[in-house]
């Protein structure tokens, strides 16, 4: 057993210097990937007209802020899970998700009161939203998964869910600068679907990659 001198010696023999998981760098890498995705989407599909005109619609500003909080806030919690410690809280994601609930809840209320823009928006626009957001989110998830693999997350299932939520938030944030729709119903429907799909994919895929 390792606690015997010979076994401890064997482990010591395998020792090599390690660099502690740097969650700040990994968060920055996710941010850079999100920005790269945003630039690619704008280059391929174009930027919003109000953004180009320098007069962004209030919905764009609100959506950007909430998606940034959801994406980066949840990613911060995910990365903290790579460095376990009894007594350490990783609950920032709860606040981020609570704030983002404004979109699905607001969307339902808006739809119930007559804003049915989601119904009139071309389905192709919705599919484009899903495609770009999921592609951007998948790329943004890579550094998070790498950090968790190097680290020691004690709750792989929760980490999987949260990687998905963070990736969905960052992917949607990147697409947001192209998305021409300001309807709360449209945002509540398609952006929620993006985050939901990413969360489910994270739950299914990530735990098996990070279990130790």
């Amino acid at each position, binding site marked *: 057993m390792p606690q015997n001198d010979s076994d401890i010696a064997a482990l010591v023999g395998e020792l090599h210097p390690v660099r*502690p998981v740097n969650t700040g760098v990994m968060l920055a890498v996710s941010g850079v990937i999100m920005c790269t995705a945003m630039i690619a989407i704008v280059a391929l599909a174009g930027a919003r007209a109000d953004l180009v005109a320098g007069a962004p619609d209030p919905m764009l500003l609100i959506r950007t802020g909430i998606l940034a909080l959801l994406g980066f806030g949840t990613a911060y919690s995910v990365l903290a899970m790579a460095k376990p410690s009894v007594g350490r809280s990783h609950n920032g994601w709860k606040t981020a998700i609570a704030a983002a609930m404004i979109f699905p809840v607001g969307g339902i209320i808006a739809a119930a009161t007559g804003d049915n823009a989601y119904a009139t928006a071309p389905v192709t626009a919705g599919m484009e939203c899903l495609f770009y957001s999921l592609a951007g989110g998948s790329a943004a998830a890579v550094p998070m998964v790498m950090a968790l693999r190097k680290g020691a997350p004690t709750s792989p299932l929760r980490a999987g869910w949260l990687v998905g939520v963070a990736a969905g938030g960052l992917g949607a944030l990147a697409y947001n600068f192209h998305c021409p729709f300001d309807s709360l119903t449209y945002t509540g429907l398609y952006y929620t679907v993006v985050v939901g799909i990413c969360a489910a994919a994270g739950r299914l895929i990530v735990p098996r990659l990070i279990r130790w």
Partner: protein
Amino acid sequence: MKASEDALRAFMVAAQSGDKAAYTALLTESGRWLARFFARKISPDAVDDLVQDTLMSVHRKLASYDPQRPYLPWLAAIARYRWVDRLRQSYKHEARTLDFDVETEGHEDVVAAKISIDRLLNQLPEKQASAIRLMKIEGHSVTETSARTGQSASSVKVNIHRGLKKLSALIESE
């Protein structure tokens, strides 16, 4: 003599830099600490294996330690994770009473209490905690656990399943 938190932390920081002497001291002291940590929390014949598994995890996950934070709460998180993982395994062993003698003095200070396995178990509903204690820690059968707790056999199984799932989510909680 037990190494202090500060000493263990210094050993760990040096070990991350590749200092083999510090790593030897760290593993030796951590092994002793873990033996006390797991005492009475798993069958006596499994303690050594669990200490071994945990030290292997420490070895593989050295990069997950944040040098800015205390060492023992990190080690406790690794240990709790391995302990819950071990409980999940469907092992069977003979029921036996936990009358073995393990030194636990000095392990009851405030910090140790906050990161202990008891603290973790106490966060479960009583039915789940008692089912896990009797069947997974003390090694009683389903029938014996059912008789002792007054729960039906199926309830014992359900409570263990739910309890272990909840323990997994609570590993880093105080």
